[in-house]
């Protein structure tokens, strides 16, 4: 049996609509951020991905998740 990882996924801004704020999710080892984005079904056509953070550090979609990572997914947002 393939090994799995437990991660925490947090969604923000437009991505929360009809989805969730925070969830613990289980994935096979080797899962990338892009896989998680696809799996959550967030609307990246309408709201392109802006900021991805794993454990508070900026990462990109190719990042391979590790067990107990906290992944935060934001669309392009800003303020000031």
């Amino acid at each position, binding site marked *: 049996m393939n090994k799995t990882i437990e991660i925490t996924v947090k969604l923000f801004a437009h991505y929360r609509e009809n989805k969730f*704020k925070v969830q613990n999710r289980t994935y096979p080892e080797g899962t990338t951020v892009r896989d998680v984005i696809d799996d959550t079904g967030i609307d990246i056509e309408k709201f392109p991905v802006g900021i991805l953070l794993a454990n508070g550090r900026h990462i990109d979609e190719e990042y391979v998740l590790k067990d107990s990572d906290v992944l935060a997914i934001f669309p*392009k947002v800003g303020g000031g």
Partner: protein
Amino acid sequence: MADKIYRVNMKDLSYKIEEVPEEWMGLGGRGLTSTIIYEEVDPECHPLGPNNKMVFAPGLLSGTPAANSGRNSLGAKSPLTGGIKESNVGGTSAQIFAKLGVKALIIEGIPEDDSTFYHLHVTREKVEFEKVPELVGKNNFEVLDTMLEKYDKKVAVMTIGRPGEMRMPIANVSVKDPEGKFRSHGRGGLGAVMGSKKIKVITVDAEKYKETIIADSEKFKAANKVFAKSLLDHPVSGQALPAFGTDVLVNILNEAGGLPSRNFRSGNSENAEYISGETMAETIKSRNGKTTHGCHAGCIIQCSQVYNDKEGNYLTSGFEYETIWALGAHTGIKDLDMIAKMDALMDDIGIDSIETGITLGVAVDAGILEYGDGERAYELIKEVNNGTPIGRIIGGGTGNLGKLYGLTRVPVVKNQGIPAYEPRAVKGQGVSYATTPMGADHTTGYAVATNILRVGGYIDPLKKDGQLELSRNLQISTAFIDSTGMCIFVAFSVLDNPDTMPALVDMINARFDINLTGEDVMEFGKTILKREIEFNRKAGLNSAHDRLPEFMKYEPLPPHNVVWDFTNEELDSVLDF
């Protein structure tokens, strides 16, 4: 008719309407206020004395149909920082000044008879002075109502509350917005300067103004179309800001470990979700408020909002991230309704909600209130308005309170409170806070864009690499943008879309029939910064003041356990051009 300089002398209640000197022709907004302060104000003068001046100036494109061009600049020597200050505002004043042909309003001197306050009314032909003892001690909304009874409802209104009358360093100048609420020349205590000149309120005639003259209106229209489209196409200014406002930043900074919490003890706050932009947007919708709202006519970004109370009645608008951070994460108040109530009170009494909030968070360390005690914080703001001793202590701002209570954890640069972005964990922003001539001001070189938001590329917020150059370039281009009358949020598009800045420059060229280039823009920004730095140097602010608070060098900030590690030489190189 050509634009004029309106020069008021409060000493003898006189005014002159002057031709614009050749060398001021191409200037507006911050570029003009900083140039006039630099050329005419003795840097050693007392900010509240007879030799300081206040200069109001609309941006180069204010009063035109250019999208988002309604920002007005106010400059003076700051009683908070002791250096030069420019603070710009939305509202209606920029467009009304520009359409009336007022290139700048310069206010000099202090009245010989200082027994009461004055109302100044500016029209195309003259400036009228009226004693207004009946308005002394009144809050902003009451002053506004009185002015709206007297004049056409579109009249521009700039007023100070009681803290301004009492010349407190946190006092702001409040400006009527299109909805009859207030926007603020918030930072640097400019309300105290207006109070020192014994001016309670300034109104500007909005009945007899003419449309602003545009030299080449076809070229202007074409450029404005490209410009406006670029703002709407950018996901930040086109989608996120209208939906969630600036408060959307709470969760981002919190996730990135850069949300200063408990007076800069951590980069994460347990209150983030309660005070987040997402929570605010949900709350607003459930109470029939508005999530989209502009601070000035012609704004197409609409980042502001109307926030109602539980009963669905208006509570506040212009409810911004930095204010919510200061009261929520820094002072610990997690009840967004209570923060909104405080925001509304601060609008009414005319104090800088950023400086006040930062001061309250430091007041927790001083033992004046408990962390998270919103009721007490609200009472303290009332004390500010009543001018009681504790109110005066809060009203002195962050740096002064820290001194009075013997604290070392005092988040200020040049005595102005550091807002909302942890310098140790958002290092590019830290460089801007340290080196800008304005004191800790988040708008002067918004490196958060590239450090955190991935706008204009990406530079790792926790590393030093690339930060000095990033801050330098942002500070230069911001000095230019602040001179155009443009809202700073056009910068997101400027950073990501190569068409935006040329369109902005084309609009200026079409308006004045000139030929600015992209290179000129950078030279323009540098020239303004040089004048501001030169003023500060002569005022006694030198490179030793271009530093962050010392505790940031030796206290690692969780969760990333980072310290502030730029050398003095590195910081001194940022604006050395």
